[in-house]
């Protein structure tokens, strides 16, 4: 095996991490949606502590990646944005956690 190939193989777990989920705010959003069946925008806004603009923007990216399903509906006269993780989103979230765990577990203990 050439030195370059060896280096590539060593770096693989961390370079293969899903960058969409790797962003902390998006990870937080996905974690909340992972533990429930569905939630509305207001619930996520309250629980995550993100601003409205920030949450909207991250949800847009997650929707574009196919990880979150966003449905707008009316509850009586009140508009409501319902959010849920898609099947791909759940699989990607599990894979991300597994790859992060592996990448961090492989690190040697630090020496002083």
């Amino acid at each position, binding site marked *: 095996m050439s030195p370059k190939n060896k280096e590539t193989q060593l770096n693989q777990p961390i370079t293969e991490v899903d960058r969409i989920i790797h962003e902390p705010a998006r990870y937080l959003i996905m974690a909340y949606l992972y533990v429930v069946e569905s939630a509305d925008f*207001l619930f996520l806004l309250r629980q995550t502590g993100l601003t*409205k603009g920030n949450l909207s923007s991250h949800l847009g990216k997650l929707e574009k990646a196919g990880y979150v399903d966003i449905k707008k509906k009316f509850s009586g006269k009140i508009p409501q944005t319902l959010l849920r993780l898609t099947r791909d989103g759940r699989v990607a979230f599990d894979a991300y956690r597994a790859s992060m765990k592996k990448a961090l577990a492989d690190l040697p203990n630090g020496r002083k």
Partner: protein
Amino acid sequence: MKAQDIDLKKLERKVWTSFFEDGIWDIYLGLLLMALAVGAFFTDVGLTEQYSIFGHIGVVILAIFFLWLGKRLITLPRMGTVHFGPKGKARITKAQIILAISCFMGLAAFILVSSAISNVSARQQVMDFIFPSFWVTTMLVVFSFAAYFLNYRRLYIIGILYAITIPSDKIMRQFLHIDLTVLAFGIPALAILIMGFIVLARFLKKYPLLHEEEQNA
């Protein structure tokens, strides 16, 4: 805590307990106990049993309306909607089954014991000693199971406050010669209501109402 360090079990518990963060259930349970106090009050002041029953039912209806409207008008516009996954649903089902079984078994045991006794003085003994012990045990067991399975810790305190009502009524009657059942039920009910309103006030402060346009993406 870094976002990537999130413990999903803790997060799920946090989402679940947020369901009881509004104090509405505490107030509902406080009102149910207050219904017994109101019924007892009408009897204590010498009104007929009909007034007592109407008073009791009136407060129970008020409690049910408060729970329904409170969740709809106070909690949902402030905290949003969440549908729990299979684990959450299983937790509710487990708590419901345990509650139903404990209530049924307790009631059946009490009916069997009291109907088996024909002697008047023995029946009085049942009312004086067995019924209060049965009440305390049932309340502590039922509320503790519910608190454990629903992860709703204030239910332990509520269970204790429910449990002390009948023994304190007996103690007041027998040792202090005070015939005020309303106090035995009213004081614990008031304590639960105060606790509920404090939790509700904290909830209102933590989650002020947002404008409609801020509530959606």
